[in-house]
């Protein structure tokens, strides 16, 4: 399968300490790639470098044939990012949020309004789109957070822990959204601390620990490294790879 994203030797230091060190991996077109790892492993820092927000100290990333360092604008045309924390304007309505970010992503006013309607429907908020976001439940806010990332019809979507703190209904809806996006041809990078979620959704998984990639493979192959894939859970694989010690 065709490679869509290729990270090569990515390294980032904060105050002299490496948060991400020599990270290399590829994401294939139209796959859901899971990035797993304990707290502080460097997942978010990696995503920030992949999405042009943070310049790597060493290394480069190629997204859809364009370097994040030299062709940031070309990369930004192709990506959508749903950050780990809610990054939206709670005092405004979902529609206003979507239209605004859509316009900043280069859509015209008319395009942005039309696209906002489609996106609202796909995140299951069509009937409440005109209410202010701060009155929404946690699950609804998370879905708006994802919706914003969809406004520019990204070829590559980054979802950084999109299902934190929400009920099974919202979570299921998000799964369905992600799966239908893949069916439409979107490539997805997905991080989560819920192993069964990763198992269910991801075509391939990269496991990070202490800033480094320690394994990349399909869920089945990862399980086979530990035991019988039908008897082993991804959680067991995760603990096997990253150890049982607590992280800061």
């Amino acid at each position, binding site marked *: 399968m065709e490679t869509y994203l290729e990270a090569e030797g990515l390294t980032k230091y904060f105050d002299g300490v490496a948060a991400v060190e020599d990270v290399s991996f590829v994401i294939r077109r139209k796959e859901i790639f899971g990035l797993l790892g304990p707290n502080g492993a460097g997942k978010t820092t990696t995503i920030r470098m992949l999405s042009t927000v943070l310049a790597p100290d060493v290394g480069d990333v190629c997204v859809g044939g364009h370097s994040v360092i030299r062709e940031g604008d070309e990369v930004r045309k192709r990506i959508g990012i749903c950050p780990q924390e809610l990054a939206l*304007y709670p005092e405004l309505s979902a529609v206003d949020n979507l239209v605004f*970010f859509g316009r900043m992503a280069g859509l015209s006013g008319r395009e942005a309004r039309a696209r906002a309607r489609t996106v609202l429907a796909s995140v299951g908020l069509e009937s409440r789109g005109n209410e202010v976001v701060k009155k929404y439940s946690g699950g609804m806010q998370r879905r708006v957070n994802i919706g914003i990332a969809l406004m520019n019809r990204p070829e590559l979507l980054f979802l950084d822990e999109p299902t934190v703190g929400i009920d099974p209904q919202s979570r299921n809806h998000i799964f369905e959204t992600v799966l239908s996006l893949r069916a439409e041809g979107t490539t997805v990078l997905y991080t989560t601390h819920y192993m069964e979620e990763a198992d269910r959704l991801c075509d391939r998984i990269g496991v990070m620990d202490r800033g480094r990639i320690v394994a990349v493979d399909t869920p089945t192959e990862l399980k086979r490294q530990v035991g019988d894939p039908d008897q082993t859970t991804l959680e067991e694989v995760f603990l096997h790879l990253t150890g049982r010690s607590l992280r800061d």
Partner: protein
Amino acid sequence: MGRSFHLARFELRRYLAHRSDLAFGIALPVVLFSLMMVALGPDAKFRGVMHVADLDGGSLASRILERVENADGVAVRRYTRDELADALGRAAISTGFVIPPGFSASVESGAPASIVVKSRGSGSDEGRFVTGIVQGALRAAASEIELRRVAGVLVGDPANDARLDEAVRQALAGARTRPPVVVVTESMWVREASQLDRLLAGIVVMFLLFSGTLGARALIEERRTGTLERLMTTRLSAGELFVGKFLAGIGRVVLQSFVLLGLAFAVLGMAGPVVFLQCLVLAIVVAAAVTAIGLVIAAVARTEEQAAFSAVVLTMFMSVFGGTFLPTSGTGWLDVLARFTLNKYATDAFVGLFGEAATLADQGAELVILGAVAILGLATAGMMFRVSSSAV
């Protein structure tokens, strides 16, 4: 650039959706100004009030008071003898007038009579202004009486009042339409700046400074929640983001100025779209300066609390030392200190425009200084601008 404008427009909508900001930036000054208007009473729009105890109550006294009341910019407020003495004693007023009993009768019978002016100390500008108007009214009344007397002698029949009245009336009407001698006054009526003008201008500037500098909080909040970083993954460049935030700040402060200046004009009883427009142009320059200061605070402060603290301290310091509450027309170190405040230049410029003694063209020095603050602040903030809350 188009994206910057769109961003600015969006920001304005957010501002209008933000109740606490609106309450502080617009509702609070509205309440403050309304209270001032009530406290100062309807007289505030007059340049002077004639505080008078009319102990005579005769027809001549009434005619004189009527003349004064019809003069431009003067109101008449009536007192009893004791009330007037009391108001003067309490220093509630600085000049009072007493029309003694028998005044009208005395004048009509040809005997001399007088109106007594009571002043505290040397009186006030207002008192002198009102006294001038009263003297004018007295002179007009005196010439009418004189004319009447002369006409009476000529007609030789002072008892024949009807004929006499008619003759006097015609003579006065003739004098009005074809005055034998006139003085042509070419000076324009100019509204002089008062203490109230300075206070209102100072308060307007203080609130603009508050909004401009407190805008830093919102920017830091966006850095914390990650919307700025998220915007960096759209097609918006950091430069466009910075310009958009600057334009939004100007828009917000100008919107606020529009409301506050409108109120100030209402309190001061000022009219004139030309003056108002000039005030708005000045407000744009002030808005640029205060927004630039806000952007510098946003660049330096790490948390919203730090930003709010810096904004409040800076605004209060500059307002107190920049002459918002007291004039700075002295010498010495306070005056030197005032020159380091934005308020001094902004307030002086507004007071000049309020007083109609100056136009925007006369405020060149102030405009240049405010513009320089805007440019320097913008350059500093631009160099330090960042979208992420921690080290990158």
